[in-house]
């Protein structure tokens, strides 16, 4: 079996001592920032990106992905214990999880969340192993026209599934695309929009954009409201769920895993959408929907399984097609580019140990998370007492040193300040920064494929519609856009996201 062989190679890579260590550091950091509100995986990965520069590519990606799925675990801990979701993907877990904690059943709630996540993580790992190779095969047959259409679909879909105004999100994508074009033109070498700055010849530093728009803007947003966090935690007793709990929770876990796995693959999907959808489904099919919101274990099991599954399957389009489904995946692509790896279907073929190592490390990382989270819950909760006043100077110092270390260039630090300001202004105007980052990463790819496709077709723009695969992708993109603008769908979409 080829899959077993591949997974074997992956496990061997992931089990190398260095990779095990950094996988552990990744999930530890992930849990940490998952517990702490006000700092999420996107900002953390952006900050740590420069540090990974000196690592082996596999090690770097293993650690960064550990942060992402580790945050899903940490976020649920605080959601259950103090009704304060550390991550937005755990927001629905707080509804029933906190009620369970109030009834003295915090232990079973935490254990259900952790074990459900572990189950979902295991299934998602297998799914990635099963589906990544055939998708890679398909992707290798793609010409420039197909790539262009696929990128368009990815961008459009990321808007559709994000929250907030659709038009403004589209605007943010285009701004991102434009910013991505700054620098030397690959085909002619012409300097574009560099305003005479030599430092911009290689384009705007991706890390500076990510740190500015996510890291700095997030600090500023948190400084708007410096109210105290009330932390009152009862001692957690009786960790293990009863037989009845198991009986009630296993089906929701399976359903949550299935739903999360599907939604994770979609562009713009991932953990947040998955958990919301899973909760809604459980409530709808339950024979006793009135129990939801009053401590139903299904309301913890399903979304926790779903957000973990979604977090992991969102790696599929990133690893096979080089297309990020969400901002965290955009950062992963950035990490690959920093390492000199061209993201896309060739990664699986040219660097199988990297590709399969990252996949296998997810399973190992999930195992670590279960072992890390359940016995150490008291420790994580105590972290919440760290005041934000102490936290953000440290974050800022790491950002500065980290950004500088990428190119040893002070110019990048001024760019951080500029993008921090831009990010904050746009957030104030209710423009989501995530599409901007996606656009920034995809801008050069989009232009390159457009140019190539047009050259091959001798300037005939119908090439995008006459090639069946390309036409199909574009039709889906248009459909997605039409559906999002339908009034009824729009209302539903607002409902799903309003709880955030």
């Amino acid at each position, binding site marked *: 079996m080829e899959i077993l062989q591949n997974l074997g190679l992956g496990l061997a890579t992931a089990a190398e001592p260095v990779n095990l260590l950094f996988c552990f550091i990744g999930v530890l950091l992930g849990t940490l920032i998952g517990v702490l509100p006000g700092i999420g995986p996107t900002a953390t990965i952006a900050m740590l990106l420069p540090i990974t520069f000196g690592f082996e590519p596999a090690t770097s990606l293993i650690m960064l992905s550990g942060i992402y799925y580790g945050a899903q675990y940490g976020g649920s801990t605080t959601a259950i214990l103090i009704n304060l979701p550390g991550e937005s993907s755990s927001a629905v877990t707080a509804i029933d999880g906190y009620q369970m904690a109030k009834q003295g059943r915090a232990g079973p709630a935490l254990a259900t969340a952790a074990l459900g996540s572990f189950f979902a993580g295991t299934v998602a790992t297998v799914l990635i192993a099963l589906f990544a190779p055939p998708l890679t095969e398909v992707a290798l047959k793609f010409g420039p026209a197909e790539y262009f259409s696929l990128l368009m679909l990815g961008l459009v879909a990321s808007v559709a599934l994000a929250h907030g105004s659709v*038009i403004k999100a589209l*605007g943010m994508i*285009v701004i991102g695309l434009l910013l991505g074009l700054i620098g030397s033109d690959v085909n002619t070498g012409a300097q574009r*929009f560099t305003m005479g700055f030599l430092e911009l010849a290689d384009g705007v530093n991706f890390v500076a954009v990510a740190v500015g728009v996510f890291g700095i803007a997030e600090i500023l947003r948190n400084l708007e409201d410096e109210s105290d966090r009330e932390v009152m935690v009862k001692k957690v007793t009786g960790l293990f769920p009863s037989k009845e709990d198991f009986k009630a929770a296993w089906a929701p876990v399976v359903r949550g895993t299935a739903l999360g796995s599907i939604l994770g693959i979609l562009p713009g999907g991932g953990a947040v959408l998955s958990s919301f959808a899973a909760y809604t489904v459980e409530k709808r099919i339950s024979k006793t929907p009135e129990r939801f919101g009053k401590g139903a274990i299904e309301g913890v099991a399903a979304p926790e399984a779903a957000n973990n599954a979604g977090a992991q399957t969102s790696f599929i389009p990133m690893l096979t097609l080089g297309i990020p489904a969400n901002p965290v995946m955009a950062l992963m692509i950035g990490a690959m580019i920093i390492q000199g790896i061209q993201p896309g279907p060739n990664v699986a073929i040219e660097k199988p140990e990297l590709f399969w190592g990252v996949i296998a490390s997810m399973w190992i990382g999930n195992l670590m998370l279960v072992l890390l989270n359940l016995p150490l819950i008291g420790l994580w909760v105590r972290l919440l007492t760290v005041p934000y006043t102490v936290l953000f100077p440290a974050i*800022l110092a790491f950002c500065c040193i980290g950004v500088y270390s990428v190119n040893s260039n002070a110019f990048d630090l*001024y760019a*951080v300040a500029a993008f921090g300001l831009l990010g904050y202004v746009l957030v104030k105007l209710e423009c989501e920064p995530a599409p901007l980052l996606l656009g920034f990463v995809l801008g050069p790819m989009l232009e390159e494929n457009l140019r190539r496709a047009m050259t091959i077709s001798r300037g005939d723009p119908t090439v995008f519609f006459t090639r069946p695969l390309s036409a199909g992708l574009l039709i889906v993109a248009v459909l997605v856009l039409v559906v999002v603008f339908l009034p009824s769908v729009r209302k539903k979409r607002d409902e799903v996201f309003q709880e955030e």
Partner: protein
Amino acid sequence: MQINTRDAAAGVIFIVIAGLFALGTQELTIGTALRMGPGYFPLVLAGVLGFIGFLTLFKAVGKAQSPMTGVPWRGLILILGAPVVFGLTLRGLGLAAATALVIAISAYASRRATFVMAASLTVGLTIFCVVVFSYGLGLPVQRIGPWLTF
């Protein structure tokens, strides 16, 4: 007639950015669809962004105001200033002093900052950063820069 200031401002910002990029393509070859010059794609994008900007602006008219939270001016200036100061002083002061400056500046960004807290944060975090980044990860920056050595 009411206008949603937020959406209107977003629209205006989109239009301004589109205008700046369109202006930037002036010095570039536009080319044709067959032989696209470096200016072709950006110009198309700027056009799309401008259109989206006008659409946003148009839709803001007649939409109710949405509540806006206050801007933490002190935090804004200090937090945005910190990386700039770091960039200006890193070569001269070296890693230790430049990091200390960043932490001291950003500690005061909080309205609750006290001198004791800022001072202890600065000392503690600076030591931590120098140990981790300079000794641990081998960042190629002088720890004590030329401005501080006589």
